[in-house]
C-alpha cells in the first residue's frame, strides 16, 4: 500500500459526503447569484428614484427614454457624449488582473530596421495560469521588461528542468521556448526548436545570435579561456553562462566588456536567463574570486550576476539606454556577506547608468529598509530588533509591489540576511501574496500546502516553538502566519544559533 492507495481509500468515503460537498458548491453559487441579483435590484431601485427625482417631465434624455414623458423621445448625439466614452483598453496591462492575461501592448519591436511582431501566445502545451508549467517543476518567474520607456516587448522567463526528461527549458518568451540540451558541458549550445520556433521571426533572430555567440566562444576555446582566466562558457542546468575574470586593474577583460556593451546596445538578443547557483555549485565556483557571469542577454535586457571577492552578489537587469534595475531576488538566498554600498558604484561604473527604485526590485541601504518597513506598519521596527548578537545585517532585499500588482508601493517580499563569519541566516517575509510553492534555486523550499510547519501567529506559544525547534525532523522552514502575512524562518539555522526563548522574543517583537 502506498500514497496512491491512500488516495484511493479516500475515494470510498460515504457517498453522502460527496453529495454534501457538491451541495456546498451549489449553495454557494446560489447564494452568490442571490446576492448579485439582490444588489442589482437595490441598485436599480436607487437609480430609479435618484433619476426620477432629477428628471422633470418634458426633459430630453440622450440614449434613453425611460423617464421621458414625451411620446417620442428625441435622441441627440453630442460631441461631449462621444468624448466621455472611456477607451476599452489603454494597451497597458490591467492592475487588477495578472499581466499575462491582460491585453497585450503594442506587440512589435524593431531590430536592424526590421519590425517584429510578438504574439501573445505560448508554445503548445504551456500554460501560464499556474506557477507550474506543465511538468516544469522549478523556479518560474515572469520578467518584466516593459517599463515606462517601452512596452513593446514582454519577456517571460522560466527556469528548470522538465522532470524525467533530459532537457531544460532555458527561456520561455512570448511565442517560443528555448530548449537547451545539456549534453555538451562547456561547449556551446545545442538548440532544439519547436514548430513555433521555425515559423517565428523572433526565434530566428535568437537562434542566429546564439549560434554567432556560440561560434565566437568556440573560437576562443575553452582551454584557452581557462588558461588565461579569460572567458568561457558553460552550461548550467540548461543555461548558457559566460564567465569573465577582471584583470589586475579591476577592469573587465575587453571581450567581456564588448559583449556587455553589445548587449546593452541591443545588438544581441536574449539567450537565456537564469538564477544563482545552489550551494554546491557556489562552492565549486567560489575559487574564481572575481568573476562576472553574463547570464542572459536580450535585445533590451542584460542579466548579470556579479560576484566579487567581498562576496557582493546581485542580479542586474539593464534595459537599453542605461536604464538599470536590480533584481537580487534569485540570488538573495545564495548571497554571502554582501554590502550594497560597494555594489552601487561598481554597477554605475559598469553601465554608467543610474539606479532606479521605481522598479520592482531594489537593493537598499539598511536605513532605507527600516524606513520602508515602518511604512508597512505591522512590521515596523522589525529589523533592528532581530539582529542576533554577534551578527550583522549583511543584506536586505525588498521586492515591492509594482504598478502591475495589487498594492503599488507596498513591500511585497523582504529577505534579510544576517551574517557572522561563515554562518548566515535569513528571514523572509512574504506580505500579502502567499504562494503555494516557493522555490529557491530550482528546488522547492517548501510548499505551504503540504508544509506542516505553518502555524497561526496567535497559536504560537513558547512551548510550541520549543517543540518545533527541538524537532529533529523539522528540516524545513517554519511558517508563521499572521493575517495575510507570512513570516518564514529558516528553522535549522535558527536552532543552531538561537535558543527557543530568543526566537520567541524575536517573534514577539516582530509580530505581536
Amino acid at each position: 500500500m502506498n500514497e496512491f492507495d491512500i488516495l484511493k481509500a479516500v475515494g470510498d468515503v460515504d457517498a453522502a459526503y460527496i453529495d454534501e460537498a457538491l451541495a456546498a458548491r451549489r449553495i454557494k453559487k446560489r447564494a452568490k447569484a442571490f446576492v448579485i441579483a439582490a444588489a442589482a435590484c437595490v441598485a436599480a431601485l436607487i437609480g430609479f428614484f435618484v433619476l426620477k427625482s432629477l428628471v422633470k417631465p418634458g426633459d430630453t434624455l440622450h440614449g434613453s427614454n425611460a423617464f421621458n414623458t414625451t411620446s417620442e423621445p428625441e435622441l441627440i448625439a453630442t460631441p461631449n457624449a462621444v468624448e466621455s466614452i472611456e477607451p476599452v483598453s489603454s494597451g497597458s496591462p490591467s492592475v487588477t488582473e495578472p499581466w499575462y492575461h491582460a491585453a497585450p501592448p503594442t506587440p512589435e519591436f524593431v531590430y536592424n530596421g526590421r519590425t517584429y511582431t510578438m504574439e501573445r501566445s505560448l508554445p503548445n502545451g504551456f500554460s501560464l495560469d499556474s506557477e507550474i508549467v506543465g511538468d516544469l517543476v522549478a523556479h518560474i518567474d515572469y520578467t518584466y521588461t516593459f517599463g515606462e520607456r517601452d512596452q513593446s516587448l514582454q519577456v517571460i522567463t522560466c527556469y528548470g528542468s522538465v522532470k524525467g526528461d533530459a532537457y531544460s527549458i532555458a527561456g520561455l518568451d512570448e511565442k517560443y521556448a528555448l530548449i537547451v540540451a545539456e549534453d555538451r558541458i562547456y561547449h556551446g549550445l545545442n538548440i532544439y526548436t519547436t514548430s513555433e520556433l521555425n515559423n517565428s521571426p523572433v526565434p530566428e533572430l535568437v537562434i542566429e545570435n546564439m549560434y554567432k555567440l556560440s561560434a565566437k566562444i568556440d573560437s576562443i576555446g575553452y582551454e584557452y579561456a581557462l588558461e588565461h582566466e579569460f572567458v568561457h562558457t558553460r552550461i548550467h542546468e540548461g543555461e548558457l553562462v559566460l564567465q569573465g575574470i577582471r584583470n589586475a586593474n579591476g577592469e573587465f577583460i575587453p571581450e567581456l566588456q564588448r559583449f556587455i556593451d553589445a548587449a546593452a546596445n541591443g545588438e544581441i538578443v536574449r539567450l537565456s536567463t537564469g538564477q544563482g547557483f545552489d550551494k554546491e555549485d557556489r562552492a565549486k565556483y567560489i575559487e574564481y574570486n572575481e568573476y562576472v557571469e553574463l547570464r542572459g542577454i536580450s535585445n533590451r535586457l542584460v542579466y548579470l550576476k556579479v560576484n566579487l571577492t567581498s562576496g557582493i552578489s546581485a542580479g542586474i537587469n539593464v534595459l537599453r539606454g542605461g536604464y538599470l534595475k536590480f533584481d537580487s531576488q534569485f540570488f538573495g538566498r545564495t548571497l554571502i556577506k554582501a554590502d550594497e554600498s560597494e555594489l552601487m558604484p561598481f554597477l554605475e561604473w559598469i553601465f554608467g547608468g543610474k539606479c532606479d527604485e521605481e522598479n520592482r526590485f531594489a537593493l537598499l541601504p539598511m536605513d532605507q529598509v527600516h524606513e520602508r518597513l515602518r511604512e508597512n506598519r505591522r512590521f515596523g521596527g522589525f529589523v533592528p530588533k532581530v539582529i542576533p548578537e554577534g551578527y550583522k545585517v549583511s543584506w536586505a532585499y525588498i521586492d515591492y509591489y509594482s504598478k502591475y500588482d495589487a498594492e503599488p508601493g507596498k513591500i511585497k517580499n523582504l529577505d534579510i540576511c544576517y551574517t557572522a563569519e561563515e554562518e548566515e541566516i535569513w528571514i523572509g517575509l512574504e506580505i500579502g501574496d502567499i504562494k503555494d510553492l516557493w522555490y529557491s534555486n530550482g528546488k522547492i523550499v517548501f510548499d505551504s500546502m503540504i508544509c506542516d510547519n505553518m502555524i497561526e501567529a496567535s497559536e504560537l506559544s513558547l512551548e510550541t516553538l520549543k517543540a518545533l525547534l527541538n524537532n529533529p525532523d523539522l528540516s524545513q522552514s517554519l511558517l508563521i502566519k499572521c493575517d495575510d502575512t507570512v513570516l518564514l524562518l529558516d528553522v535549522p539555522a535558527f536552532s543552531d544559533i538561537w535558543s527557543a526563548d530568543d526566537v520567541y522574543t524575536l517573534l514577539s517583537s516582530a509580530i505581536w
Partner: protein
Amino acid sequence: MDDSRIVDLFLNRDESAVERISAKYGERLRRVASGIVDDAQIAEECENDTYLEAWSSIPPNEPREYLFAYLGRIVRNIAIDRSRRLSAQKRSASVVELTKEMHECLSAPTNTEHEFEARELSKAINAFLSTQKPQQRTIFIKRYWFFEGVSEIAAELGCSESKVKTTLMRLREKLKVKLMEEGWQV
C-alpha cells in the same frame, strides 16, 4: 433524466445509458480525472474507461441513489492507477502534491494485504470524516476526492485560501492521530 432511470438503462443494456451519463456527469468526471492526471487527453481517456467500467459493473451493481459517487470512484481509481503507472517515468506536479499530502497521514506499509487494508482504511477515513464539521468535511472531500485546487475550493466556499490550507493541514494532522490510535503505522 434522473439517476434511477439512467441505471435502468444500464440494467436493460441500453447503450444510450453511456450517452446519458456522459451528458450529465461527463464534464465533472473529466475534472476529477484532470485533478490527478494533469493531462486533458489522459483525463478524457479515464472518463471513457469509466463508462466502460460502468457498463461492465452495472449490473450487478445498482447505484440508483449514488450514481455520481459510484462513477466518481471509478474515475478516481482509473486516474490514480494511470498516475501510478506514469509515476514510474515522471510524476505530475499535482500528483506529487496530493500524494505527499496523503503521505503525511500515513506511511506506506509494505508486505500487507492491500485490499483488506484499503477497505479498513476507507472505514477509518469514513469514521474520521463523520466526526468532522460539515465545512471541514467538505473541504477535505473537495481536495482529496474531487482533487480540486485550494484556490478553487476557497472560491467556491467563499473563504480565504489560507483558511482552506490551514483546515486541510489540521485535518491531516487529526487524521494522522486518529489512524495512530487505531493502530495504523504512521
